[in-house]
């Protein structure tokens, strides 16, 4: 499903005379993602949870080059209002857009109310819809998720649902009007990567909206795999915020997403059972 209109050219050339590379650019070709009419230059979404400090969060945001970050809503007075007051300021200074979530909601009713409160708090119609159905795995509750998605779309929200890696559910979510789907690779915060790559690829085939791999990313190669499977973007939270060096991991994720995207659009070689020599046999000396 590679798109021939996608950028695939490289600016690196080898001189015919000297055999030395010249005009080498390490920058990736321009490549944007559009969700519900909003164009993003970065295909990495960042979760703001889990950072040891706001300073590290800001540094990681800069290193990741993300343009869209998630925030949650919680009661004032929990965890000190000073730090929360400055969260919004830090994110505004970072120049990123906010994607509020409904983290912690267990029912469609709670998720819908939380989304409406988020719209009031952050002046955005965008909502990352999460409706959790199991305490241990934090897996989505499919019927509640679908119900909430339908209601929120009716209320004019741009809905990005966190969903299972089920292609049928993904299609149902798009049928009710979701602007993207965010299937999990593995449970939230587990760092187990993509447990069912086949399903993620099926989801990419099943829907026409952007697919954002959400949850389970543990390290850079997981993000690259997601993009190689055809995902349009990757969301990373704990993988960055809970890494030993979050800023370094943010750099890694940025490049991993670009690498996976480039590889996907470049068109990989088919897998073969046996070797295929890359050097021709013609001209082989006979000793």
């Amino acid at each position: 499903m590679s798109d021939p209109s996608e950028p695939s050219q490289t600016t690196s050339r080898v001189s015919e005379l000297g055999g030395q590379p010249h005009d080498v650019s390490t920058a990736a070709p321009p490549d944007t993602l559009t969700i519900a009419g909003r164009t993003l230059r970065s295909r990495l979404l960042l979760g703001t949870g889990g950072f040891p400090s706001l300073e590290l969060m800001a540094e990681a945001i800069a290193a990741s080059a993300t343009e869209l970050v998630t925030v949650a809503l919680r009661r004032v007075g929990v965890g000190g209002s000073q730090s929360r007051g400055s969260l919004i300021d830090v994110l505004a200074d970072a120049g990123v857009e906010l994607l509020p979530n409904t983290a912690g909601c267990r029912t469609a009713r709670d998720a819908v109310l939380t989304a409406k409160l988020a719209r009031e708090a952050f002046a955005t119609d965008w909502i990352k819809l999460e409706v959790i159905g199991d305490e241990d795995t934090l897996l989505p509750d499919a019927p509640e998720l679908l119900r909430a998605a339908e209601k929120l779309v009716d209320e004019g929200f741009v809905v990005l649902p966190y969903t299972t890696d089920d292609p049928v559910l993904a299609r149902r979510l798009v049928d009710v009007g979701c602007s993207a789907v965010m299937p999990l690779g593995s449970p939230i915060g587990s760092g187990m990567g993509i447990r069912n790559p086949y399903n993620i690829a099926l989801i990419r085939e099943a829907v026409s909206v952007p697919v954002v791999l959400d949850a389970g990313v543990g390290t850079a190669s997981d993000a690259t795999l997601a993009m190689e499977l055809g995902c349009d973007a990757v969301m990373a939270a704990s993988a960055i915020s809970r890494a030993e060096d979050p800023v370094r991991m943010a750099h890694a994720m940025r490049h991993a997403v670009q690498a996976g995207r480039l590889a996907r659009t470049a068109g990989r070689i088919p897998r073969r059972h046996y070797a295929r020599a890359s050097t021709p046999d013609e001209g082989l000396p006979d000793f």
Partner: protein
Amino acid sequence: MILNGEPSEIPAGETVTSVLARLGLESGARGVAVAVDGEVLPRACWETFALAEDARVEVLTAMQGG
């Protein structure tokens, strides 16, 4: 009334704006939303809406989250 899950001594008739002031929040505060009895109370109503004695008030704000 119940404020963020805790019983409070706030008298009936108080506006949302003054409840926010008790929490150290200005009514123009960014990233703040209020629900009363399970419904969103739009910002435009904060100055005038008088809270009932048995109101359940939730005052929410941004927190770091995935």
